[in-house]
């Protein structure tokens, strides 16, 4: 039996599905349930991480400070993780997170732009924090590029590195190839974070573990943007049956998922038509709400908007492109 560490970003990535509106009671309740289930790492924050509350992506209901102190207090055994995108949050946000008792700090960068993380990973290494780096939108790079970028971030000080399938684009073989390439390039734990746009998140995560990933992400009820993330309470037993150990209590896990469904979300995510399109277009599912709103007002097909965003290679954080794309498609329709 091979151990894997389950990393639970329900209270961070799930925020995208509810426009970053999770309140203190929900945060505390889920953190307590996850802690009771023995989920080893619980990540919290605005959907785009520390310092990211904004009109561009969505303004959070609760400040970073309050989110972190609430979850820290609720976790008695589990580690607390936070997430930060350079250019959105800064080192002063990292300092605050350390002061709040964050155990693991993940720096997210677009998969081919890891040098953006050099300064912050260096800062965290110096501060003695457990810093990990995740390469986002990893379907936009080859396995070789990902391996090279992963080696670079370990050089900057990351003690864990991995990939996010931010658009839910991968099939299991894609994941196997990428995780193998990364695992052979670094000597730190490798992370996989799946999205479910094409219904492959659990299968992709199992492929990742089999290829050598030591840290696998999953969210309760798949709570996440669009089609959602890897469904945690499915992932864990499937991993156990495949021959991996997680140390998580099954009933506790199922209880936490019940709590999440009841208290965190209006309804569990499912693979709707637009999520399939965003997966095929290779665009981050988090754009969904704004695409729907903007295209609805202008009377253009939101599917066209996603495919056009894909053509422009929009990356996470570039929500401001939506208005321009909608305006352009709307003008084209009038002209045509």
């Amino acid at each position, binding site marked *: 039996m091979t151990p894997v560490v389950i990393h639970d970003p329900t209270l961070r990535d799930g925020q995208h599905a509810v426009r970053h509106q999770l309140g203190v009671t929900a945060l505390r309740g889920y953190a307590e349930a996850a802690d009771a289930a023995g989920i080893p790492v619980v990540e919290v924050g605005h959907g785009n991480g520390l310092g990211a509350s904004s009109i561009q992506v969505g303004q959070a209901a609760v400040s970073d400070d309050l989110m972190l102190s609430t979850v820290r207090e609720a976790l008695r055994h589990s580690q607390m993780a936070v997430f930060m995108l350079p250019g959105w949050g800064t080192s002063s946000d990292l300092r605050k997170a350390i002061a709040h008792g964050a155990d693991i700090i993940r720096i997210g960068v677009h998969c081919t732009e890891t040098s*953006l993380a050099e300064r912050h990973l260096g800062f965290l290494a110096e501060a003695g924090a457990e810093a990990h780096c995740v390469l986002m939108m990893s379907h936009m790079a080859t396995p070789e590029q990902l391996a090279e970028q992963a080696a670079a971030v370990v050089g900057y000080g990351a003690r864990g590195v991995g990939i996010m399938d931010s658009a839910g684009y991968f099939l299991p073989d894609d994941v196997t190839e990428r995780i193998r390439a990364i695992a052979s390039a670094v000597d730190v734990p490798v992370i996989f974070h799946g999205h479910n746009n094409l219904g492959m998140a659990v299968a992709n995560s199992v492929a990742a573990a089999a290829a050598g990933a030591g840290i696998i992400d999953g969210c309760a009820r798949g709570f996440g943007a669009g089609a959602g993330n890897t469904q945690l309470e499915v992932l864990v037993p499937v991993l156990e049956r495949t021959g991996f150990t997680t140390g998580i209590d099954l009933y506790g896990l199922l209880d936490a998922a019940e709590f999440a469904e009841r208290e965190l979300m209006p309804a569990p995510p499912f693979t709707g038509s637009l999520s399939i399109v965003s997966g095929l277009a290779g665009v981050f599912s988090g754009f969904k709400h704004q695409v729907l709103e903007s295209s609805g007002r202008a009377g253009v097909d939101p599917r066209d908007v996603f495919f056009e965003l894909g053509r*422009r290679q929009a990356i996470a954080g570039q929500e401001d492109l939506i208005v321009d794309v909608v305006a352009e498609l709307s003008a084209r329709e009038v002209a045509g």
Partner: protein
Amino acid sequence: MTITEHVGTTEPVTVAVIGTGAIGQDLVSKVHNSPVLECALVVGRNPDSAGLRHAERLGYPTTAGGIDAILAAPRPFDVVFDATNAMSHAEHWRLLRPLDTLLIDLTPSKLGQMVVPTVTGTQTPTERNVSLISCGGQASIPIAHALASRFTAAYIEVVSTVASTIAGRATRLNLDEYVATTQQAISAFSGVADTKAILNISPAVPPATFRTAVHAVIPGATTEAVRAVVDAAAEQVRAFAPGYRVTACSVTGDRVVVSVEVTATSEVLPHYAGNLDIINSAAILVAEQHAARLGRTTRTGARR
């Protein structure tokens, strides 16, 4: 006609450029095209850098001797452009402060007096250190200032996107300074306390044109009124940065969003590198106005 004939003096306004990345190279090229500025030295740290080769091809003296080479000059340069990084700028300012030199800072160090040409004018401050804030600041502040002058804004947020291929190492290491400096400048020039700055680096191929989205919370604004205000502001910016244009402008409830794109008109920059073009054009404008005030010139900065 030689530069001397142009400026009508035997003592040209001398300029040095520190930093040999894309910003430094474009500055050298813009100084080359300026009728009133003379490039006297281009300074790097790596003798093999492409930036030094570029300056040599244009016929200018170069050195890999760093800031020491600037200090060793027999007569202080009239203007020194600092295109290094925010950390180095603090040291450069400390060393150049005693000299009779105008330091123009292209890094987001926030040490000098902040200049956005269409908002602040381009006067030389008493403390001879001018901060050009950041590329996102140069692109967004004319819009933020115009909106805040006409309407009552409760919040302003600026999101800029720069193509990866022209985001050099200094830019990548200075993201924190970029965010803090841009945010502070937006507050200073809009009078709105609650502001936010965000920077995205786009890996798209072909590279994405530099863009800035200005989000504002303004109760009671109409699209027509916002459009008129931002179009007028953009027209003023185009006087020195002709690639500056408003690409989208929408008002939904109290949410205003104005998108701006800037293309470069430069011999050394790709067209999408409007971020570097606008900050460098502003820097050249400051230097040329300074040259005019030094009284050694007969012409002022109408380069284009």
